[in-house]
């Protein structure tokens, strides 16, 4: 395949609710910033890929149709991608394929979410209706009528993991310490939703249970309204844009994806309950394509729906051993932002994990969350001169969708 580079990125402010903007404007804000970052006019873009998770949240079927003209993408090809929580990842994969195939030289990948206009007249708040809309990700025959929620499904994976590896993710203090570290990182994200919050391990442990014993209120990701864009370019186009902006390109080195079966079970192609196989297979494919090992990668922006799942995912992706993911804290595998500052690189054996604050502190606008992660990874690579980074996405019921992208900064210090 042809080489593919990232030449621009832009995000909106991450907010619990944007009453000042519809999703039309959020997507336009992200597009404006992405194109300005690359010093590119809309006319120069060959095609666009939209990451939009859910028509019900956007309150319009075919929501991308309303965006075409507003984003300056009229008379260009436009593809909408929707793959649950992994929508952003799959949208980027689609954009990358379009450039890699030679079909387009410059592709805008933009994703976002407007979720909290939903309203539940019973409780007079948004949350139960947002949860119910996401719960419609379950089938209407067997699972939805049982009252399952998205949190339940990720927790079911964590419970299955804990059955097999007791004493790892089950230690609330380890999880609380990770939260404290993610919070400090989120404070440094100028667009982060919870950038002004201070959350200590003690507060995490005192917060209310959502699902015992792996999920307290302060361990969960947010609902965010916002959007993010990534501009992918062919090698020739990337050199040209880089000349213009003075910013070096970030190269796509490996892309891996794997979706597990919806049916949970034993053996065959069934989804096991103790493991997020999709994360493992996706990451292994991305490593193989890039010719790297996890130990080569000092920076990860992963999809952390919940801290316990963050631990399992980092185990599946090979950064810590499965069953001993608590080494993130116990052995200091998770780099401490207080030591790194704004320009430092993690020491050997350490990984900078979710410097954006992740989906728990930074933002989680589902259709664009993985673009948000990519935006952050590129930012950190450039300013810290980090050579390699991994971007991860997960989604769908029981975390059955998985995706991973390895990117490289040639000017990074090895």
């Amino acid at each position, binding site marked *: 395949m042809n080489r593919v580079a990232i030449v621009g990125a832009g995000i909106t402010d991450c907010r619990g609710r944007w*009453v000042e903007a519809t999703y039309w404007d959020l997507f336009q804000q992200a597009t404006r910033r992405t194109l300005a970052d690359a010093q590119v006019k809309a006319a120069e873009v060959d095609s666009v890929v939209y990451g939009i998770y859910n028509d019900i949240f956007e309150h319009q079927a075919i929501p991308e149709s309303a965006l075409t003209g507003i984003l300056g993408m009229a008379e260009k090809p436009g593809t909408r991608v929707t793959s649950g929580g992994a929508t952003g990842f799959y949208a980027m994969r689609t954009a990358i394929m379009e450039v890699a195939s030679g079909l387009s030289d410059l592709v805008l990948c933009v994703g976002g979410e407007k979720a909290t206009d939903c309203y539940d007249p019973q409780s007079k708040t948004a949350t139960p209706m947002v*949860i119910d809309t996401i719960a419609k990700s379950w089938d209407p025959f*067997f699972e939805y009528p049982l009252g399952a929620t998205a949190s339940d499904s990720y927790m079911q994976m964590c419970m299955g993991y804990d059955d097999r590896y007791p004493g790892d993710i089950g230690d609330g203090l380890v999880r609380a310490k990770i939260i404290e570290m993610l919070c400090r990182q989120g404070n440094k994200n100028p667009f982060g939703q919870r950038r002004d919050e201070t959350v200590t391990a003690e507060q995490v442990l005192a917060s209310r249970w959502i699902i015992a014993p792996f999920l307290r209120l302060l361990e969960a990701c947010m609902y965010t309204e916002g959007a993010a864009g990534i501009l992918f370019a062919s090698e020739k186009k990337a050199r040209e844009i880089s000349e213009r902006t003075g910013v070096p390109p970030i190269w796509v080195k490996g892309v891996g994806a794997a979706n597990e079966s919806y049916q949970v079970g034993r053996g065959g192609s069934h989804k096991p309950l103790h493991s997020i196989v999709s994360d493992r297979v996706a990451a292994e494919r991305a490593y193989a394509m890039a010719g790297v090992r996890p130990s080569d990668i000092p920076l990860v922006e992963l999809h952390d729906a919940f801290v316990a799942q963050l631990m399992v995912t980092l185990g599946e992706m090979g950064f810590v051993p499965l069953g001993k993911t608590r080494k993130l804290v116990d052995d200091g595998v998770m780099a401490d932002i207080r030591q790194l500052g704004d320009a430092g690189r993690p020491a050997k054996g350490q990984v900078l994990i979710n410097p954006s604050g992740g989906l728990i502190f930074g933002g989680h606008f589902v259709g664009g969350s993985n673009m948000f992660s990519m935006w952050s990874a590129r930012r950190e690579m450039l300013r810290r001169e980090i050579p390699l980074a991994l971007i991860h996405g997960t989604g769908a019921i029981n975390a059955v969708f998985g995706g991973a992208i390895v990117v490289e900064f040639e000017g990074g210090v090895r």
Partner: protein
Amino acid sequence: MKQGNILGEVWNLPRGTSEIAGKDPGRYLQFNSHMVTFYQQTYGELSRFFLALREGKLLGARCRKCKQVLVPASTWHCPTCDFVEMEEVDLPHRGVLAATAPITIFPSASFIGEAPFARGYVDVATDARIASFLPSRLRTTTGLPRPGIFVKGVELKLVFEDDRIGAIRDIFWVPMSEVPARLRQKKPLLASALNFKNPPAPKVRKSREAAAALGEALAAMRALAGKVTKSPRAQKDLGGRKHVLGVTTGGGGFTLKIEKGALRVAADLAKKTDFVLVAEDPAVFSRWVADGSLTDAAVEGKLWLPSREAFGVLPILDRLPRSVRRDVK
């Protein structure tokens, strides 16, 4: 069986547009709307499974080639053997919980009022080398679902609702150990054969430490009660509610009375109560007053509740310490 309507009266909003303040300065509007469709959703090829449920049978699909069993029968053509047609298999009414089950306390809008409930994956075709698991509701006859009951490997008995419509909620599972020996082989076992009402309260171990802890808890609750009448927020929390909650602990019993916006604490177990809660450690209540949570205690299994109605009172009690802290110096 009367099912009621799909949407209740509460699922509605008045037509209109209102002003809404955001993070940025400026005036913004929002309009009330909805996006919903009704369905007459066909069960199609899945109808066989649901028709069988109506008859008190659990059906699976078995591949003649690879012998895998799909529970439920989510397809009748084996996806791993070139979609060869699968055969019907009548499944046993006993199974094993495949992984420890999560307990839902914050349900989505469509399930408000059902919490707490447990759902998990049941391994039914345990003789098959390859099998899918049945997603199911899990119930106990010992009170509300709580940690330690629905753990990986626990043996379960399939129970059928007496009135069945052809839906996954026609069935649920209970721990086999809770099913009387004479009913364990029964197929189908109907819900009416088991006693889910008036679950027996767990026995508590009495101790001198617990008696001392109860003294502290009572003092803390009385101090809280004294402030409740002075706190407008707490008054709003209690509204026009009326409850008499008995509590048994390892240090002795007590009663919480809620009436006319007041909380009263009596150092004995009243004869007439709405329900009786059980906590071996009375410190559960001291922690509640110190801005903790009775809901959390229930979720952790430290506070036993007889019913969903009792669980529904806890969020109101949980608000009181916070309301009082904000209103009363």
